[in-house]
């Protein structure tokens, strides 16, 4: 149909010319329609591509190709099948009317024509056709829109899949990096006569910037450090891992800790200040100003209890004397890497027997509660004093727990690192001292069956190193193992990652074993021995513990939570 308002549509009619048809042509023209008359069906079909009629009249009696066959051909072709076809019949020709509809006509008119009726029917069918066209356009537009949306959605899904893949890769990489970092932390602290170590490390995210370690430098000296790389995440972790690798003593002249003189016989230990100076040269701050680190590094003389250290921008060590006096041992130096020509001062702390020294990262003191109030030194001091009589590891764990409780979350806001040691020198028969306590082993492990065998091995090694008879050693190993099983099965109610803290100390001629957990309090009643043929878990184990140890008792936990089991074995 054309868009000319004076030309409402072009109508093609295949019919023999007659007075009726002539009248119709005049009337159509008056109503704004143009009628194009052809004599037969073939002519009608061939003229359609040129005329592009909006509606077709076919006379059932037209010569040549019948009206019905013409209509069938029109409806078979995509270009013409949508054009409305109206048959022209006679009033009595019902058969043709029905057949007309069956071959695709939309209507019929009868001769002689009732002009108004014909015009009304044409108008109606053109309106219907127009609406159909409009509807088809709308459908086509909708289909286009749907297809575009589908393409956009597929593209979005592909992007999301790629993001997810990248995220998974990144998570795996971060987890792998965290494992690398964890592997560089001391798995089992080395044992040294007269000094017991304890540590903890809680990264604030999967990757932290803190690191710590303890290592022997020679027969009399132990090196230890805690460092804190500025910032968190991958870049901080990478530097932290690099530093962990650099800060491992090696038997070669390039070792950071050896002041080489060219001859192995005359090698001396590099002083803490020298170590800081070397690190300052090796790790200048990057140009973006974000990569520097704080460090506390010290050398402990395990015979004399002298701790010589440097503290580069790091929180000062806290010394807790045996009579509970807490001292912050501050020396002011800038962090490593900030200035090319930094000088680093040293301090010396002379430990008393039984004295404890705590090195820690700023995440401990600066843990904030909801009101942004920091944990602070006073609270730290209270924890240290309250836990002084318990195992050192329990004291360290107590600090972490209190700091996390203070923040109201179990996820550290900043990396939390604590490395502590207690100096309890062995009794020297040539120069008698008042000291009567010696740390044999301090070890923390998870409440898992797989952790028990390594714990037994460590206990055996530590006890054998002191020369006790293997029967005594095996009895103590058994008692500790049974106690740990009870902690796992009864206190924790099954295997878990919660800690078990083991401490073995020699008090005069008594070996004192203390096992602590973080589990809900267990009634001491469960420690009652049962008949030997009672093989319920726990019963036989308690029986063993009481058989091989001189005393087995529950004590108040040094951290105020969990359970504390104390077992004593006379080795006099």
């Amino acid at each position, binding site marked *: 149909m054309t868009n000319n308002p004076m030309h409402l549509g072009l109508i093609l009619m295949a019919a023999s010319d007659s007075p009726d048809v002539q009248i119709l042509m005049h009337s159509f023209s008056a109503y704004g329609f143009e009628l194009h008359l052809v004599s037969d069906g073939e002519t009608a079909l061939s003229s359609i591509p040129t005329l592009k009629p909006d509606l077709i009249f076919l006379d059932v009696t037209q010569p040549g190709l019948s009206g019905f066959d013409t209509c069938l051909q029109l409806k078979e072709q995509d270009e013409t099948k949508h054009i409305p076809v109206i048959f022209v019949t006679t009033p009595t020709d019902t058969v043709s009317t029905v057949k007309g509809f069956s071959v695709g006509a939309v209507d019929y008119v009868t001769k002689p024509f009732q002009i108004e009726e014909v015009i009304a029917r044409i108008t109606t069918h053109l309106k219907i056709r127009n609406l159909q066209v409009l509807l088809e356009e709308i459908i086509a537009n909708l289909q286009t829109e749907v297809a575009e949306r589908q393409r956009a959605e597929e593209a979005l899904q592909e992007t999301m899949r790629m993001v997810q893949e990248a995220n998974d890769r990144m998570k795996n990489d971060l987890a792998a990096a965290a494992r690398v970092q964890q592997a560089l932390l001391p798995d089992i602290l080395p044992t040294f006569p007269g000094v017991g170590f304890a540590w903890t490390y809680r990264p604030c995210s999967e990757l932290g910037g803190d690191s710590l370690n303890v290592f022997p430098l020679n027969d009399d000296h132990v090196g230890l450090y805690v460092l804190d790389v500025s910032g968190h995440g991958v870049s901080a972790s990478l530097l932290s891992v690099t530093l962990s690798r650099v800060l491992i003593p090696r038997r070669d002249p390039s070792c950071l800790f050896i002041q080489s003189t060219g001859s192995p016989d005359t090698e001396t230990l590099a002083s803490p200040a020298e170590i800081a100076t070397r690190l300052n040269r090796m790790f200048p701050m990057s140009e973006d100003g974000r990569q520097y680190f704080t460090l506390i590094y010290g050398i402990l003389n395990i015979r004399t209890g002298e701790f010589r250290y440097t503290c580069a921008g790091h929180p000062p060590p806290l010394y807790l004397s045996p009579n509970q006096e807490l001292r912050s041992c501050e020396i002011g130096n800038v962090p490593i890497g900030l200035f090319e020509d930094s000088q680093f001062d040293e301090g010396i702390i002379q430990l008393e027997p039984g004295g404890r020294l705590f090195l820690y990262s700023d995440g401990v003191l600066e843990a904030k509660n909801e009101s942004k109030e920091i944990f602070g030194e006073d609270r730290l001091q209270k924890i240290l004093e309250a836990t002084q009589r318990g195992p050192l590891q329990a004291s360290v764990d107590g600090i972490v727990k209190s700091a996390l409780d203070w923040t109201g979350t179990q996820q550290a806001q900043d990396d939390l690192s604590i490395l502590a040691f207690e100096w309890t020198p062995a009794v020297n028969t040539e120069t008698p001292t008042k000291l009567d306590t010696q740390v044999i082993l301090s070890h923390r492990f998870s409440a898992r069956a797989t952790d028990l*065998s390594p714990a037994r091995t460590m206990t055996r090694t530590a006890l054998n190193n002191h020369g006790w008879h293997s029967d005594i050693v095996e009895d103590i190993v058994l008692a500790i193992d049974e106690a740990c099983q009870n902690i796992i099965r009864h206190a924790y109610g099954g295997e878990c990652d919660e800690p078990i803290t083991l401490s073995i100390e020699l008090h005069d001629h008594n070996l004192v074993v203390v096992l602590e957990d973080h589990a809900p309090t267990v009634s001491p009643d469960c420690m009652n021995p049962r008949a030997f043929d009672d093989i319920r878990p726990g019963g036989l184990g308690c029986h063993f513990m009481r058989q091989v140890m001189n005393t087995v008792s529950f004590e108040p936990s040094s951290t105020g939570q969990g359970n504390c089991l104390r077992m004593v074995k006379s080795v006099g």
Partner: protein
Amino acid sequence: MEHQVFEQQGHHIVSLTGEIDLETSPAARKILLDTVDTSTKLLIDMASVTYIDSSGIAILVEAFQRAKKKGGQVAFISLNPAVVRVLSLARLDKVFSIHADMESAIHAQP
């Protein structure tokens, strides 16, 4: 912990190696009970067991009791001192049939 099960002169012999503790005793329990269920003459060779705890002792008692119930026999061979110590703490050294070697154990189980 590792194990071997084999037959010799009509006896089923379970040879255990390593530590029997909280971690390994569930596996050891299955091995022993499966063998008890298919054998009336069971010898448990513990020459290479270096450590046993209460959970390990509990499975030995369970295997021993189950065998007794079905009229079978269980004996222990070649215990090292650490295992003997734990058995004696459980006062089982007087209850279990313990032999120095396989030959004497086989003779004792007609």
